[in-house]
């Protein structure tokens, strides 16, 4: 049997080991992949710049170009890196890297004016996006540069959301481990506390806090962390309950480890991983929450940009005549949330022990 398999099989029929079949099957994808990707990218790049056609034709050509490029690149990737290559994942990762880098480097990047309307008196107001001009993504009604505002908005958004996740992880993880390890009264009190936090719908909680707190980055991060807190506490508590029964905890206790040492050195490292992967998932929820709050006018206040308050600028008639006011921050928000969701979903499938069984 085995010598039959090793013979070359020109007809392509007959059994072949899966490992052998994979390489030739994917290698031949590279060339057509490249063939699809290059014209696709060219079409997508040239459509908005060159085509002298009405808006929706350009849009269709652009979308078709993107689809072609995606199909081509996916094939190219599978051909070069093997069959399990997931192009969408890498695209999402690349987008997040770009957003984060831009947000970090915002002060040194050669961007237009994002905040001070006194400096933009000469700049065109409501300029539509045009890639090779001074304002690649256009300007708003004060002539402020939208690209600069998007990037500075990303700073606020990411800072607030990631800060909130960090607060949630530290505080929630701590409380959850305490509740899961001490049980009894600590657990009951924690349970009532988390249930009470969960008893107020998230956005209502944020709005109520918005009435009370001064809307600055620190306070918004604290308010958002209250959304992450209950689930963090519950997850940390649940993992602690299971890990506290395991032999390594028993061994540590038998060797005379104190309660704090057991919690800090034995339980914490095990609880942290599911918390971190959940943190990835919840970042996107918090970004949306911050954007919603700013959209409602209760979050980050203009003239400081945030994706939410930029979208709010386009509400009403401005949206009708200048759709880019809404679409530029809207698409950025969508892509970022999508990327976090996709990567978070992958991380959760991989590291969350409860999901792994499913």
């Amino acid at each position: 049997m085995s010598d039959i398999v090793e013979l070359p099989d020109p007809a392509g029929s007959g059994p072949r080991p899966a490992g052998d079949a994979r390489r030739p099957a994917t290698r031949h994808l590279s060339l057509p992949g490249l063939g699809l990707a290059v014209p696709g990218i060219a079409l997508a790049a040239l459509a908005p710049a060159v085509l002298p056609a009405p808006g929706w034709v350009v849009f269709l050509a652009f979308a078709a170009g993107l689809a072609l490029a995606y199909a081509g690149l996916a094939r190219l990737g599978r051909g070069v890196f093997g069959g399990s290559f997931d192009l969408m994942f890498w695209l999402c990762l690349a987008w997040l890297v770009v957003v984060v880098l831009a947000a970090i480097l915002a002060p040194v990047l050669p961007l237009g004016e994002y905040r001070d309307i006194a400096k933009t008196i000469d700049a065109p107001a409501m300029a539509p996006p045009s890639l090779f001009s001074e304002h690649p993504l256009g300007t708003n009604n004060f002539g402020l540069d939208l690209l600069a505002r998007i990037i500075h908005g990303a700073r606020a958004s990411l800072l607030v959301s990631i800060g909130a996740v960090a607060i949630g992880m530290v505080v929630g993880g701590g409380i959850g481990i305490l509740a899961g390890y001490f049980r009894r009264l600590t657990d009951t009190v924690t349970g009532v506390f988390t249930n009470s936090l969960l008893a107020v719908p998230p956005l209502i909680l944020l709005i109520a806090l918005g009435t009370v707190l001064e809307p600055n980055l620190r306070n918004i991060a604290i308010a958002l962390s209250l959304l992450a807190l209950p689930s963090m506490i519950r997850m940390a508590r649940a993992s602690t309950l299971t890990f506290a029964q395991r032999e390594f905890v028993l061994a540590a206790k038998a060797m005379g480890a104190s309660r704090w040492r057991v919690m800090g050195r034995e339980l914490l490292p095990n609880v942290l991983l599911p918390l971190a992967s959940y943190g990835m998932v919840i970042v996107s929820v918090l970004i949306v929450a911050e954007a919603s709050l700013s959209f409602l006018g209760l979050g980050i206040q203009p003239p400081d940009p945030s994706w939410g308050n930029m979208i709010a600028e386009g509400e009403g008639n401005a949206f009708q005549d200048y759709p880019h006011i809404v679409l530029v921050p809207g698409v950025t928000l969508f892509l970022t949330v999508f990327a976090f969701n996709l990567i978070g979903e992958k991380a959760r499938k991989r590291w969350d022990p409860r999901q792994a069984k499913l």
Partner: protein
Amino acid sequence: MAWSVLKRLAEIAAVLFVVSVGTFALVDLTPGDPAITVLGEGHTAEEYAALRDEMGLNDPFLVRYGSWLGSALHGDLGTSLIPPNSDVTERIAAALPVSAEVAVLGLAMALVVSIPLAMWSAYHADGRVDRIVGAGTFGILSVPSFLAGLLIIMVFSNQLGWFPRAEWVRLGESLGDNLHHAFLPALTIALAETAMFTRILRGDLITTLQEDFILAARAKGMSPVRVLFSDALRPSSFSLITLLGISLGRLIGSTVIVEYLFALPGMGTLIIGSADKGDFPMVQGAVLVVALIYVLANALIDLSYGYLDPRIRRAHV
């Protein structure tokens, strides 16, 4: 059984107590002063002191909380600080039906679309439709509801002009007009819910469809549609019901956003408007009512498990 119900009721009471304290404490934590909100600009120190006394702002926290809770339990949530100082309970009673109608309509639309969609996807798992539905729902879940609402307004209200945007006709006046005005807000709410429901129900259905009783039903010669609706749907709806409880928070959130976008006179508009002006009794009352509804709905959902699966009924005893 009675014991578990009692325990659950005690839990609910404890949670509502903490929420009411938290809501009331908002005033104490606030940098602003309710008395100044009422007086506005240009008042004397005596007027200010007298009003603070009259409003009971000088009493200790517990006394004020006690009297607020006492009247709240009798259905009196105080009066608004902003003229025309209307009764908070009345305003909430007027706003609540609007929010409830839009939310229920959105939820119904989501269920009507997502159940058949999930069935098709699960029955033809990994087929073309399934993959498109999977990618589409994942994408929709990444669109914040305020963005979806704006886009829907742009297309259906501004461009096509099929639906009105910023008016509201009460249910009592004209059913047709009312539905015409409620359609776009409900659609905005339904989008995200549809995506979520479809994904969850599809996953559960795929598990259920591998059970022996489904095979038996198919072997008897029942049609796939009949098997899906009469045999597979009920055992697959647990996660959906759980999710309904979890997503209720998001549902209320998107209702608030949608009311703001479409200028509907519902709870969301009431809360945001009052929050903007520092009208504390209104915010306190509205938040308390929303939390009450939310907690009770979740308790009802817990009870519905027993109805859906008799095994849980026995397990509780």
